[in-house]
């Protein structure tokens, strides 16, 4: 009964939505933004339009977005239980995984670095690089590497906030000089964006990794099936 009702409602919604898309596709109005972007590329400091939009034209979005990530990380680590982090039971003693780690980790760091650098001219950038870096972290953690910086102490918090802090500092420095908030000083866009991206990569990796790690695990009261991840 409930299923039927929900299905009917969803069907109606889907039809309305498809109709809306059709309507809109049929009669677009207004100017075209891509041309404006293309015109402004020369002043943006980077060569790839997506990166230019992300870190220059609409950098406020990105700033706040990193803030959202940091919030998630804060909420995550606020719930972590300290001692469980280094529980030996969690370590996988799998020789294949260890072998993979030995080969993969350097390679993945390299990939992360490349993605970061490539962002200036082609798809890629801080988030992708950070995600890969976080992936290596996950592998390391599963392999039982001691990563003490993931304990919710000052070091972790500095790591989480670093990228955001650097971004914010860059944003406010130019404003202190009388320019707009988030504006890059003349000719400084490229190095500043690179600087921001490097720190963002680190912080994003840190956030994702800490979210992976931060959860209440291995408590005696927890039912057995809850351990499966």
């Amino acid at each position: 009964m409930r299923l039927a009702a929900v299905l009917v409602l969803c069907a109606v919604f889907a039809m309305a939505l498809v109709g809306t898309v059709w309507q809109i596709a049929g009669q677009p109005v207004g100017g075209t933004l891509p041309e404006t972007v293309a015109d402004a590329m020369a002043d943006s400091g980077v060569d790839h339009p997506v990166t230019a939009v992300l870190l220059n034209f609409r950098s406020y979005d990105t700033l706040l977005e990193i803030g959202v990530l940091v919030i998630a990380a804060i909420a995550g680590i606020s719930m972590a239980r300290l001692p469980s982090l280094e529980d030996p039971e969690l370590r996988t003693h799998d020789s294949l995984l260890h072998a993979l780690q030995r080969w993969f980790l350097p390679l993945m760091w390299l990939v992360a670095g490349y993605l970061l650098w490539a962002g200036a001219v082609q798809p890629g950038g801080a988030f992708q690089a950070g995600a890969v870096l976080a992936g290596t972290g996950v592998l390391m953690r599963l392999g039982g590497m001691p990563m003490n910086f993931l304990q919710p102490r000052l070091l972790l918090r500095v790591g989480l906030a670093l990228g955001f802090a650097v971004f914010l500092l860059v944003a406010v420095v130019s404003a202190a000089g009388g320019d707009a908030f988030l504006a890059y000083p003349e000719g400084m866009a490229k190095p500043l964006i690179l600087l921001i991206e490097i720190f963002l990569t680190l912080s994003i990796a840190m956030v994702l990794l800490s979210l992976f790690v931060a959860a209440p695990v291995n408590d005696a009261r927890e039912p057995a099936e809850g351990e499966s991840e």
Partner: protein
Amino acid sequence: MSVHLLYAFAGAGVFTIGLFGMVFMVHLLRKLLAFNLMGSGTFLVLVGLAQHRNGVDPVPQALVLTGIVVAIAATALALVLIRRYFHLTGQVTLEPGSRDDEGHS
């Protein structure tokens, strides 16, 4: 009808499936997956419709990247909450007091 528009229609469909899951499913992880479906659908519409109109458009691509990060942050937060909730109550649904038999993924 361009291929981009097809993406947009697919996005509408995916969004609706996600919405269905959100409304109908009770298991928290399923709800979370449904939310991610909704997100993917939205991003498809965002890029598809814009590219249908403008050709290659960097702005929606950048928006989708931002949107993905935000969605990931939300998903991660939800996962942390769900895990802790399960840890404390042994429940996987929001109905207070009733244990869910569906099993957990």
